[in-house]
């Protein structure tokens, strides 16, 4: 069973519809308990960082997410669900989950923002969830991007005037800046890859980060 993290703002419906189409069972989880019993977690997100973090904390989901990722539960973050994994966001100065060292910065491009539309994945890491997706176009909607301190986290890059990190991965955790649930056949392939990965993947410990002791 895949838990979809519900903190009251994300558009879970479209992710759940996509999982239904793939024949993968999912449940909406708005409490730490709901996450505890899931085999895998998808953390979708739209909107701004600060209200999302406030909602996560109010429900105790911030701690539950940190625990789940630390335990190596297969995890897929989407859009804001990637950004919130870092220390802090320049978008309203929000303090984020701090699971990975890094910041979330406004995309320093001379091209139009928000970055809305289809853009391609470049230099895709050899990762089961990204298998077969090199050069594929995915649907993006965002103005901010995650900037990991550790370049080892980078699993894909994309260019919009400047090159930015469009996917990160470590252990059983992967997170993407684009919306696979809105990216047609290529997005469905990624979600299906994740569903298959979650089925076979034994928990893989995510490397601890310095100073936080996760």
């Amino acid at each position, binding site marked *: 069973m895949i838990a979809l993290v519900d903190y009251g703002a994300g*558009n879970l*419906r*479209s992710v759940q*519809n*996509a999982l*239904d*189409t793939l024949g993968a069972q999912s449940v909406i989880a708005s409490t730490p308990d709901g996450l505890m019993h899931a085999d895998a977690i998808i953390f979708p997100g*739209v*909107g*701004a960082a600060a209200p999302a973090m406030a909602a996560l904390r109010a429900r105790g989901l911030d701690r539950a997410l940190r625990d789940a990722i630390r335990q190596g539960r297969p995890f897929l973050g989407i859009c804001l669900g990637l950004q919130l994994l870092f220390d802090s966001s320049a978008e309203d100065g929000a303090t984020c989950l701090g699971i990975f060292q890094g910041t979330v910065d406004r995309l320093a491009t001379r*091209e*139009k*923002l*928000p*970055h*809305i*539309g*289809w*853009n*391609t994945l470049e230099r895709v890491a050899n990762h089961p969830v990204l298998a077969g997706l090199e050069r594929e*176009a995915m*649907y993006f*909607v*965002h103005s901010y991007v995650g900037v990991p301190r550790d370049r080892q986290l980078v699993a894909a890059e994309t*260019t*919009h005037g400047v090159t930015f990190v469009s996917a990160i991965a470590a252990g059983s955790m992967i997170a993407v800046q684009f*919306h696979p*649930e*809105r*990216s*047609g056949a290529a*997005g*469905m392939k990624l979600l299906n890859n994740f569903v298959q990965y979650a089925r076979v993947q034994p928990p893989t410990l995510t490397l601890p980060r310095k100073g936080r002791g996760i």
Partner: protein
Amino acid sequence: MLLKRIIPCLDVAGGRVVKGTHFRQLRDQGDPVSMARTYSEQGADELVFLDIEAAPQQRSTLLDIVERTARQVFIPFTVGGGIREVDEIRVLLRAGADKVSIQTAAVQRQELITEGARLYGSQCIVVAIDAKQVTESDWRVYTHGGREATDLDAIGWAREAERRGAGEILLTSIDADGTQAGYDLALTQAVANAVQIPVIASGGAGHPRDLAAVLTEGRADAALAASIFHEGAFPIPDTKRYLREHGIPVR
């Protein structure tokens, strides 16, 4: 590199996709959900549903279309037509729409843009602008499906919509709409140059070369069209092949 988007528009009335020029001679084109699915499979980058009746009593029909589409179609889609309140935005987004398009109500009560963007994020607020040419470099904003003139000039209004939090502008030339003689390139270029947010050009597509022109010379980020796709003259794969052959980056 960000690709140019091709967006079929589905005008919906009475639960069916219809097509007519300026609300006249409505012709039945098919079932909205199956058309949406077909377009998605053919490589459409996004879809727009426009409720051309915009009648409150028809809203349950529209919501049903939105819900069924969301279960079957995995590309972004926008819903517009007669949206006046943030609560209507909420209901449509919950039903599965990715974005809403607001037009007349945004002109009448500009806070609707601000409120919608604050509550749901700029990414889901598309401000639709219907514009009619007055002089060589001046376009007037019209509301109520192109029937009522306002005091607003299209370029200034696009800037104000952006300032208030619109995530995209859906720009329709009333002069070009229904002519199939090409988009209004000057209008599109003027608005695209005036704002930072993406501009979707609409009105006048009759041939893939029209889309090519508005995506290059017109500086549009996306091209919306209806008849050329619905009537099968230039299906999406053919249109995209044409664009690719002419050096325009598309999916």
